[in-house]
């Protein structure tokens, strides 16, 4: 790094051959001294302490170490098989698969309101443009087949609704006062 641009010369003597200009040019070519906190500016005691620390630092033995090959990142696998965890995961996967199969192969509503809903849905899609697969609308038909939500109970602090196997409990503290 060199000096920044020359400062303005106020006496107007910065022409060619001017000793001041030459001196300035020479000064500009010099590297900027590093702005370090110079130890020489510190007191004797501080210098002695830092020198002692530096000498001790340079002389400290380094434990021997054998070179090691850089490791290429490998996919992380468990080092030991965690059997309880694996068992729980396998059981959960089986349960999930079983439930999925049950849902997919369960009895479809074949009569009554649900059946008519399914039929109606199938008919409406098969007559539409593109004639997509009729089974794509089956979930909405199944939703139609479910019973209507019912109000099961109203107490001082809660209201209970029921829709099929699902219960919805609304808890509030305002009923008693209202």
């Amino acid at each position, binding site marked *: 790094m060199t000096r920044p641009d020359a400062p303005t010369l106020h006496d107007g003597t910065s022409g060619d051959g001017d000793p001041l200009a030459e001196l300035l040019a020479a000064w500009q070519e010099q590297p900027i001294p590093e702005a370090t906190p110079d130890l020489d500016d510190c007191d004797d005691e501080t210098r002695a302490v830092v020198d002692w620390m530096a000498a*001790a630092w340079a*002389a400290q033995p380094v434990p021997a170490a054998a070179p*090691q090959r850089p490791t290429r990142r490998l996919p992380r696998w468990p080092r030991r098989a965690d059997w309880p965890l694996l068992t729980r995961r396998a059981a959960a996967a089986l349960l999930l698969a079983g439930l999925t199969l049950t849902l997919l192969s369960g009895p479809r509503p074949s009569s009554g309101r649900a059946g008519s809903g399914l039929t109606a849905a199938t008919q409406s899609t098969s007559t539409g443009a593109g004639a997509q697969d009729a089974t794509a609308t089956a979930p909405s038909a199944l939703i139609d087949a479910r019973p209507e939500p019912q109000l099961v109970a109203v107490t001082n602090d809660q209201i209970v609704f029921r829709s099929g196997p699902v219960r919805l409990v609304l808890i509030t503290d305002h009923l008693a006062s209202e």
Partner: protein
Amino acid sequence: MSSPPTNDIVGPHLLAAVARGEPESLDRWYRSEHPVVYRLCFGFLADGTEAEDAAQDAMLKLADRLASYDPGRPYPAWRNTVVLNHCRDVLRRGATRRNAEQAAPVQLPTRLPARPEDEANAGEIRELLHRALTQLSPREREAFVLRDLEGRPTREAAEVLGVGESTVRSLLTLARRRLRQLLGDRLALGGSAR
């Protein structure tokens, strides 16, 4: 002021060969760099035992990352940055235990060995270094190790620490003052240490 042994053999050719995975180059690079990395780890962590493990891990990190090293950047600054970040991670992981250790009052002999470079006193000197460095805050220690112990320029130390040069100067002033208070009375002024 004594300066630590430097290694001038780590050049761009060697680094490129190490990045390519050439075993002989890796061996040369490792033997040249490990002492520096160990000293840095010892200084940043202020713990000799922990520094051995940290230096091994830092060497592996350096070797892994050499392929992404930009030759346009000074190698010592890059290396010191990687080592410093690794040591900061180590410090974070063991912060609780270390805080408890540093809270304990430091025990120092009434007189420091006059010749710290004497191998006969190596164990004692190392222990004294450890105790003295633990009395500095991590930031003070980092600045002091890079600037005063490793002799790196202030500009480079500031770059490695991720702070301005004026901050490095402030940290150095604090570190030196603290060390003078700790060790000044125990040092024979005008002895061979100077």
